Every structure is written in structure tokens, then in C-alpha cells.
């Protein structure tokens, strides 16, 4: 059943290419059904495990899949955001876009369900390809595709190198979820190989430069999945790989990583405050939020780690919702420049309401998912004795309120901008796409993850 979960989107995605090129509705229907099926399967297979032997030399490796307590939530998040992305897709050459989203889902399922480091690395490289093709084909600037590709594959290569060295030293890469421990002269290199890949993917300042352009240039359905889930692969890697197998080095260099996280926190928030492109505001806010999670992971506190997992999931839901909603606005009004938008809330109350909930979740309003993650992280980081990190982490929460309200008010409130098409409100299908994301945010806000 677990294999079905991973292979279903892969096969469905590949088969979609057999449909006529101009098709929009059949591919969307198939994509939606498959994505819905993966949601159900992801829930049903939370205790399953599959192991198919792959290599026995130079080290043991296997196609070993199975959800860990951390990855279960991320997989569920992935399945739900994929569903939302596909059902609300409306781009040119829709068939290709939906097929690529399904392929992306499959490769990311492989990453998060992998119990084997080599399979993790395989999925890691694989999940970059659909985004690269999207940027090549739908992207706004050709350079964006290069930046994304070269940055992330450089990370992928160091990951590969670290995986190979890990396998040689440990004799097996079938370790995720276990408690292998790497020591020796190779260990720091392995650690930095992993860490570089994870830092680039998250991204963390100063490796973030590919991210704003990529998020801004990718069509909304794809970017909602990428920002919600793909960016979490790095953080997930820190939690399940670095913290388990190389804890000594993680502790040794924790100060540096916390510093990088704190810089991302502040830098992302401040830059988000002055952006004029709505997508870039959300992109930089992601940089800021993910920096907070990095700080939490490196504070080595059980509570902070719990908070990190909650915030990973909550951030996934609200950033997916924000990107999708911005996509709908851009489709209607033909622009996503903040200064050219305004007063849409009078005509589009449903759209405004949805955007309002997503933005409030992003700024950390109690009762919604973002708040739970933030407060648990801050408590944990404080308990770990990192007073300064806690104080630094509080500042961007204030700034977040500023840029999120600026975003919401700039689009929905204020005088109506003359010349805007001001098209109709959210359709039923679009509402169906957003509803699960907002519901999840409310549920996490009330009950956390359990």
C-alpha cells in the first residue's frame, strides 16, 4: 500500500502525457482523484513499512519506505497541498503542469518516506527536476531556472558525496529511523555535505538567493507545493539525519547555525516589508519563518523540536494557501504588484476572507496554526537557555504582523484602483482548493498535532 502511495502519482503523472496536449479538464479530474487518493493512502499507511533490497556492495541499500512520526505529518501536508494545487490549477498547457505536480509529489513522497539515505538522496535530486522544467517552460525569467537548478543540484551533489561516504563508513545506508552514529575523521565532512544541501534547500541566508526569484517566477499551483513542502526537506533532513547520526557536530556548530537562522529571520522579515511583488513578500516571509524553525532545531530542546514540527506543517498550510490565493488574484487582475492592486475586498468577499485567514495564520494569530508553532518554539528555545535567540526571534513576529497586514490591506482594502478588471469572486472549485488548507490551519490552531 505504501508503494502504491509513492507509485500512484508517478504513474498517473507519466500517463497524463498520453492525453491530448490541449486537454485541460480530463487531466485535472485525473490529477484531483489521484491527489485525493494519496491523501487517504498517506493516512492509512502511517504504520506501514516496505523494504526491497537494492545494493549489497559497496554498502547495503534498500528501497525502504515507512513514515516516521515526523514525516507522517509532512506527508499528509504534501498530499493535501498537492490536492489543493491541482484542483485549483488554471494555467496554459495545463496537462503538463498537472503531470509535473504529480511527479513532484511522487518524488517528494520518496524523500519523506525514505528510510534509506540513498533513496533519500535519489528522491532529493528527483524532486528538483519537475520544478526545473516548470521554470524552464512557464518561468518568467530564464536565469531563474539556472539559479534554482545550479544552487540546488550543487547541494544535491554534496548530499550525494556525504551519502556515499556515510555508506562506506557505516556499511549501510538503510538507517533513517534507526540510531547509527558516525564518528571519525570523515564525520565532519559528511556533516557539512549534508548541512550544505539542507541549508540551500531550506533556504537559509546566505544561500537563499535562488529562492525569491524561483517563488515569484513559478506558477502558483507549483510554487504552493514547493514552498509548502519542498523547502521542508532541508529541515526534515536536519531533524532525522544530522541530529540522529551526527549529533556531536550539530552541537559543536550549533552556534553558527543559530546565527544563520537568526539572520534569516530578521533579514527575511525586513525585506518582506518593502517588497512590491506580492509573491516576493510571501517568499521572504518564508525565509523568515524557516529561519525560526532552524533556530528551534539547533537549540536541542524537546519542546522546541516539537514546535518545529508543528510549525513546519502549519507554515506549509498557510504558505500554500497564500500562494494559491495570490495566484487566483493574479489570474483575475493580471498583476500581482502591490501598488497596482487595491479595494478588491468589496467585490470579492470570499477571496478576501480566505486571504485574511491565511495572512493571520502567517502573522501568528492565536487560534490558528502558526501561533501554536511559534509559541511552542519560543518556549523551547527559551528553556534551552538561548535567551538572546528568543529575543531575536520575537522581533520578526512583530514585523510579520506589519508585512502581512500590508499585503492584505494593499490587495483587499483601500480605495478601488481604477482600471483593475475586478473580476468575480472565488469559484466553487477554487474554494474547494483553499478550504482544506484553512481547515487544517484552524484544526492545528485548536488542537496542535496529535
Amino acid at each position: 500500500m505504501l508503494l502504491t502511495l509513492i507509485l500512484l502519482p508517478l504513474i498517473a503523472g507519466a500517463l497524463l502525457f498520453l492525453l491530448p496536449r490541449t486537454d485541460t479538464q480530463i487531466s485535472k479530474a485525473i490529477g484531483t482523484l489521484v491527489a485525493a487518493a494519496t491523501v487517504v493512502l498517506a493516512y492509512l499507511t502511517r504504520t506501514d513499512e516496505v523494504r526491497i533490497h537494492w545494493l549489497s556492495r559497496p554498502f547495503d541499500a534498500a528501497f525502504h519506505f515507512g513514515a516516521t512520526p515526523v514525516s507522517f505529518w509532512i506527508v499528509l501536508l504534501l498530499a493535501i497541498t498537492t490536492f489543493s494545487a491541482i484542483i485549483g490549477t488554471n494555467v496554459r498547457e495545463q496537462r503538463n503542469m498537472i503531470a509535473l505536480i504529480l511527479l513532484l509529489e511522487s518524488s517528494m513522497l520518496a524523500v519523506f518516506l525514505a528510510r534509506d539515505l540513498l533513496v533519500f538522496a535519489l528522491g532529493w535530486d528527483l524532486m528538483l527536476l519537475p520544478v526545473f522544467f516548470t521554470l524552464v517552460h512557464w518561468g518568467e525569467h530564464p536565469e531563474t531556472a539556472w539559479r534554482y537548478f545550479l544552487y540546488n543540484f550543487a547541494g544535491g551533489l554534496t548530499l550525494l558525496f556525504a551519502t556515499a561516504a556515510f555508506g562506506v563508513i557505516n556499511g549501510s545506508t538503510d538507517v533513517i529511523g534507526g540510531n547509527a552514529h558516525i564518528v571519525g575523521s570523515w564525520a565532519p565532512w559528511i556533516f557539512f555535505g549534508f548541512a550544505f544541501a539542507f541549508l540551500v534547500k531550506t533556504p537559509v541566508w546566505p544561500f537563499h538567493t535562488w529562492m525569491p526569484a524561483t517563488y515569484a517566477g513559478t506558477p502558483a499551483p507549483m510554487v504552493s507545493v514547493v514552498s509548502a513542502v519542498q523547502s521542508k526537506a532541508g529541515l526534515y533532513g536536519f531533524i532525522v539525519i544530522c541530529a540522529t547520526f551526527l549529533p556531536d557536530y550539530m552541537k559543536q556548530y550549533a552556534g553558527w547555525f543559530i546565527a544563520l537562522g537568526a539572520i534569516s529571520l530578521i533579514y527575511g522579515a525586513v525585506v518582506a516589508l518593502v517588497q512590491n511583488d506580492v509573491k516576493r513578500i510571501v517568499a521572504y516571509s518564508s525565509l523568515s519563518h524557516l529561519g525560526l524553525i532552524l533556530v528551534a532545531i539547533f537549540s536541542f530542546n524537546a519542546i522546541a523540536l516539537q514546535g518545529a514540527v508543528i510549525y513546519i506543517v502549519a507554515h506549509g498550510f498557510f504558505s500554500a494557501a497564500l500562494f494559491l490565493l495570490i495566484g487566483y488574484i493574479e489570474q483575475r487582475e493580471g498583476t500581482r504588484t502591490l501598488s497596482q492592486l487595491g479595494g478588491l475586498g468589496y467585490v470579492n468577499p470570499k477571496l478576501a476572507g480566505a486571504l485574511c485567514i491565511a495572512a493571520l495564520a502567517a502573522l501568528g494569530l492565536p487560534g490558528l496554526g502558526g501561533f501554536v508553532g511559534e509559541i511552542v518554539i519560543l518556549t523551547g528555545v527559551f528553556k534551552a537557555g538561548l535567551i538572546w535567540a528568543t529575543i531575536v526571534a520575537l522581533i520578526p513576529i512583530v514585523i510579520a504582523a506589519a508585512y502581512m497586514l500590508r499585503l492584505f490591506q494593499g490587495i483587499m482594502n483601500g480605495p478601488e484602483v481604477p482600471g483593475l478588471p475586478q473580476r468575480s469572486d472565488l469559484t466553487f472549485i477554487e474554494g474547494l482548493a483553499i478550504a482544506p488548507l484553512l481547515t487544517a490551519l484552524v484544526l492545528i490552531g485548536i488542537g496542535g498535532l496529535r
Partner: protein
Amino acid sequence: MTIPFTQSDWNAVIPAFIPAITALVVLLADLVARTHVKRYVAIVLGVIGALVAGVFVAKQYGHPYDAFFGGFLTGGFTTVFEEIVLAALAGSLVLYGAIGREDRIAGVVALMSWSATGALLMAGAANLMTIFLGLELLSLALYCLCGLADRASARESALKYLVLSSTASAFLLFGMGLLFGATGSVMLKDFVNPALSANPLFWMGSCMFFIGIAFKLSLVPFHTWSPDVYEGAPIPVTAFMSVATKAGVLAVFARLIYAALPVGIGSKLLLPVWIIAAISMIVGNVGMLAQRDLKRLLAYSGIAQVGYILTALAGMTSQGLRYAIYYLAAYTFMNLGAFAVAAVISAQTPGREEAGSALSVYEGLGHRRPVLAAAMTLFLLALAGLPPTAGFLGKILILAASANAGYAWLAAFLVAGTAISLYAYAKVVRVMYGASFDPSRLLREPQDPQDNKNEGAPQDDKRTVVPLAWVSVGVCAIALIVMAFYPLAPSGVLPLVR
């Protein structure tokens, strides 16, 4: 006088002789065949010859035998390299069938088969004479093949290859002479003598020998001929040359370093080779960045790929040899596949045999020919070492082997080189899938007037054999994906090297 060889000696070289005999049969058949079936007769006979030879080779697997008093070894190691050469032969013949000219096809099939015979001999060669015999047989046929097309660049290619390759042969021969002087024997197995490590003649001789090898493998700084030669030669010849030559020479090199070096001097003697491999990985990949021609791009890519294979061999572990062979097999399929795509494109562009080599032709291929573009993408991903292909697994196996053998610095060069190469391979992908495709640009593309000479020449029905080239594309693609999940690295190869 009695002939000292037994039946088993001849049996060992039968696979090498089958392509040679096939070549004669093809030439004879061409004389009697009617014009419109010549193409099919030549290609079918040539491919059948390669397949039959492949069956004979496969039978020898696991049955090591020293034929001709150790002059030609059969068994695991030889078998694998011979199969790679034969795969390259069959794949390239099919491509020539799709784009070649009818009146030349028999000659090309014959030459290519003879060339393969040389490579097959090199795969099993265990004395200096057989090595040289094989190498010259391989090269002589290739000189003719390179000059085949009616273009000035083809003549340039052939002449350049002739001159530079002969220079390399001279180095190799000089080195062999010195080695013979040092050891008094042409047998590789006599080089294992530890007393040789103090003999300056041996050091001189092996250095000369390695320079010759580096020339043939087009390693930096002996690489400058390969882009020019590849560019000028017809696509199928380039495909064959890029794989078969490498397989043959690498077989010789691997046998030499694994089985024929005095104990204890390997790491010192071979250090320059590894350094050259490291530089090749960087220079080859950087060289790719600026290319606008697929064949030149793949030539530079080949320079770097040989560096990857040598990385696996560094340290001379049995693991390393296994993964070098695995990667070489994977490289065979990715390279042949890429050339097969180029051949399909050329075959369907009337009047231009080499249409598939200019990168501008690939513009918008993803829109016009989605399947072909997808196949090409797969081959490029494999060359770049990305999943879901054998290139990914090959890279990680090489990394593991070299880290294990204590050559982590070479592995670091491999990672750096790969990072550079991504841009070049992705450039082709972007050309194919870019959104800014404008069909009218194809017409405006400036053409080299000399390359267009036979534009008005009457066209024969080239399309008829294109399905075979498609088969080649499909086989390569499937092989790459299957190899990624079932690593067919043959076990127990090392004992059979000696």
C-alpha cells in the same frame, strides 16, 4: 612444423573474428545485392554479426583461459569489455543505417566491424604485441570512417585524427620498446617482478605508455583533438568512436594497472595519471559550457566522463574496477542514446546528414517531438548523473569506491566537475523545452555553406530505416533506467584480469 596452438586458443578469439568475417560477407553481399536492398542487407548482416559475436562472448563468461600462451585472456573481465564494444558496434551500425548514404553503407559497415575487431582484441590483450595490434586495427579503420562525409570538416577531422593518433601510437610503441628492454618480455604478467621498480627503463617506458593511453582516452592535456575529430566525423562514427575506443583503451589500462605493475609502486607511478584525470574532469566540463554543437559538447563530456571512470580505478581496488565497468556500461548507453537521438533528427531532416549535431536544431524539440525530447532529456540527465538513471547510481558507486580507496580528493574533483557540467547539460534541456520557441527561427538559422552542399542532391528513402534508430533510442533508455535499479556490476571480475 607443428602449430603449437590448440582448438581452445582459437575458440578464445572467435568472438573477435566474427565481426571481421562479417565485414567480408557484407562487402561480398553488397556486390550481388540489388541497389534498393543494399542498405538493409548491409545493416542486417552487420548487426547479426555483432549479435552472434555477443552470444559467443557471453558463453566465455566465467571460463577464464589464457589463449596463445597468455597473449589473449578470456573470462570475466574481457567478456564485459567485449560486450560493451559489441553493443557500441550494433548501436552505431543501426544509426548509420538511418542516416548514411546508400552507396557507402557496405564499406562503412565493414570498416566499423573491423574497427570493433581491434577493440575486441584490446579487451583481451595481455601482451604488448596484441595490444598494439588491436589498437592499430581499431584506429586505422576509424581514420577512414572519420573522413567519410562530403565536408571539409570531415577531411580535417580525418587528418587530425590520423596525425595525432599516430603520434600517440608512436609514444605507445616507444614505451613498449622500453618496457621490453627493461623486462625482456612482452607479456604483461612478467611486469609484476618487484625488481623492476628500481629500473629507470621501466619507469620511462611506463610513462611513455601512459602518455599514449592518455592521448587515446583524450585526457587533458592530450585532449585537443577529440572535439575537432568528433565534430567532423559522421554521427554514427562519432558514437562508435566515443564508446568503443574508450572501452578498448580502458580495458588495456585497467589490465595493466591491476595485473601488471610491480608490487608496491602503483600509487607512486600512477599518481600523474590520477592528477590528469582530476584536471580532465574540470577542463572537460568547463569546455562543455561554451559549445553550440552537440558532438563537440559530447566530446568534452567524454573527456570528463573518462576522468570519472579513472576516479573509480584509483586505488586499484576490486570494488573500483567493478564500478568503473558499471559506469562504462552506463556511459555506453547514455552516449549511444544521445547520438541516436541526433541521428533520428538528422534522418528526418532532408539533405543534411549532420542536422542533429547543431544545438539550434533542438530548439523547441519538446513541443515538436515530445517523445524524442523526453528520451534526449533522459540521456542528458544520465550524463549529468541525475536520477532516475544509471548515471546517478554510477556516480554514487564511484564516490563510495574512491572514498574507500583513500582517493577522496579525486572524489571531490568529481563532485566539482559534475556541478560544472550540470549547466551544460541543462542548457540543452532548456533549449528543448524553453517557452520562447519561435518556429520561424529555424529557417533563419545561418548555415555553414559547405555543410549544405548536398542540399539539392537526390534523396534516397532514408526514413525507412529510422525505426531501427528508434529501437536504439528505446533500448538505451530502458537499459539506463533498469541499470539504476538493478546494478548489473559483475562480481568476481578482478580474479579474471590476470
